[in-house]
């Protein structure tokens, strides 16, 4: 058999799952869709001592909207969230990220919480979470805490989750009316993990424009692009940012970042392509925002 032997627990609710996780040693892992964890186990890059399988915890599998936030349970299947009319209407950027995340056969099993907690640098949803300022709901032995997405992702396959803790839900702010958004990425084949990607959401409100942008796939964790956000926010109405200005802003934003360098792409390529993807994403988002007014 391919994976190493492990102890298997199958709780039927969140409280029971947390109890079982807390009772295990620190090499125990949560098993949700398994679309990222099981490949690592089959290759024996990961060898958890125990798995707590949350697939039967129905109280982790709901989607609901309250007070302008959309809360998606950690065990919601990616395909279900992608096709959910509520998610499409209230968080279109989340639905788009999921559409681009893997293939139907992996999205049927893979979960929203799984792709976030796995924290692969090339995954789309962590980038969207950081761009939109999502809130990660974490529960564990010390009780529930809410972590801003920007503080959740610490590095490649590394989050702030402590042993015994579990991501139980993620909250995304609902899209403001008239907002434009876009997610543009490049990878080796369609729907693979991204070599580089940019997520944008921009709104022209009565108090001026609000823009949130993050890049993913280029560093160990998603990066907010504040200089580029300022450039867009300061644009006159109906104006488009100049290509040179976008490139300069992106360069400034990622100047201090340790860009990934691997077989798929060099750091220099990632720098260049991020600016190009950002320009494309901004074009689409701004066009969408104008159309939405």
């Amino acid at each position, binding site marked *: *058999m*391919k*994976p*190493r*032997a*492990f*102890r*298997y627990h*199958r709780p039927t609710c969140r409280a029971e799952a947390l109890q079982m996780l807390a009772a295990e040693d620190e090499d125990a892992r949560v*098993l949700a869709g*398994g*679309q990222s964890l*099981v*490949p690592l*186990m*089959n*290759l024996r890059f990961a060898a958890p001592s125990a*798995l707590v*399988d949350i*697939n039967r915890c129905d109280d982790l599998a709901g989607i609901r909207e309250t007070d302008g936030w959309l809360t998606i349970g950690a065990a919601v299947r990616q*395909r279900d969230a992608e096709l959910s009319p509520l998610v499409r209407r209230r968080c279109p950027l989340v639905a788009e990220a999921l559409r681009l995340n*893997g*293939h*139907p*056969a*992996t999205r*049927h*099993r893979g979960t929203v919480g799984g792709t976030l907690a796995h924290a692969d640098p090339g995954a789309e949803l962590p980038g969207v979470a950081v761009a939109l300022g999502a809130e990660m709901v974490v529960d564990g032995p010390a009780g529930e805490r809410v972590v801003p997405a920007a503080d959740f992702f610490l590095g490649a396959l590394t989050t702030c989750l402590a042993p015994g803790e579990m991501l139980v839900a993620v909250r995304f702010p609902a899209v403001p009316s008239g907002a434009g958004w876009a997610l543009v990425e490049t990878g080796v*084949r*369609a*729907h693979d993990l991204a070599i580089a990607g940019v997520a944008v959401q921009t709104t022209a409100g009565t108090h001026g424009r609000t823009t949130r942008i993050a890049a993913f796939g280029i560093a160990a964790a998603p990066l907010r692009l504040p200089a580029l956000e300022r450039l867009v926010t300061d644009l006159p109405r109906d104006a488009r940012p100049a290509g040179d200005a976008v490139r300069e802003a992106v360069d400034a934003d990622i100047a201090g970042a340790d860009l990934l360098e691997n077989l798929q792409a060099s750091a220099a390529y990632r720098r260049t392509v991020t600016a190009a993807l950002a320009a494309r994403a901004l074009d689409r988002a701004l066009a969408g925002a104008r159309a939405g007014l």
Partner: protein
Amino acid sequence: MPEDRIAVRISVNGVPCEREVPPRLLLVDFLRHELRMTGTHVGCAHGVCGACTVMIDGRTARSCLTFAVQADGCEIRTVEGLAPEEGLDPVQQAFHEHHALQCGYCTPGFLMATHQLLSETPDPSEEEIRTALAGNLCRCTGYVNIVRAVQAAAARLAGDAHGR
């Protein structure tokens, strides 16, 4: 250390199967080694190639990324469950007629992914076909004949639906 064994009840192509399995047994190995149903192939065993695609409760999934214990209580459909008693089902027939396979190793996965696509999108564009099958790798055909076969299967199923 003796391994735990867990009782599972899994319906495969409508036939209920009960076994006691170690938690680390993958669904694809359950099908192949426990049930001796070797139609589902193991390609990469880490979710990249799609050769092991089956349906779990009516939706495609990688059987190399699912433990058999997770399929407890589920309905599994494999390539063995596609054809009627005699002959081939319309998707298999189209793959055969359009020479959409050479070595055939990847074919079970392509057939399952094609069924998924056509159940949701009965008249897919070429781009929709290529996107839906992007998670399945074929090292022989170059995909052109696979796309043609899916188009032909879609047309045949649409014709059947109209009683022709």
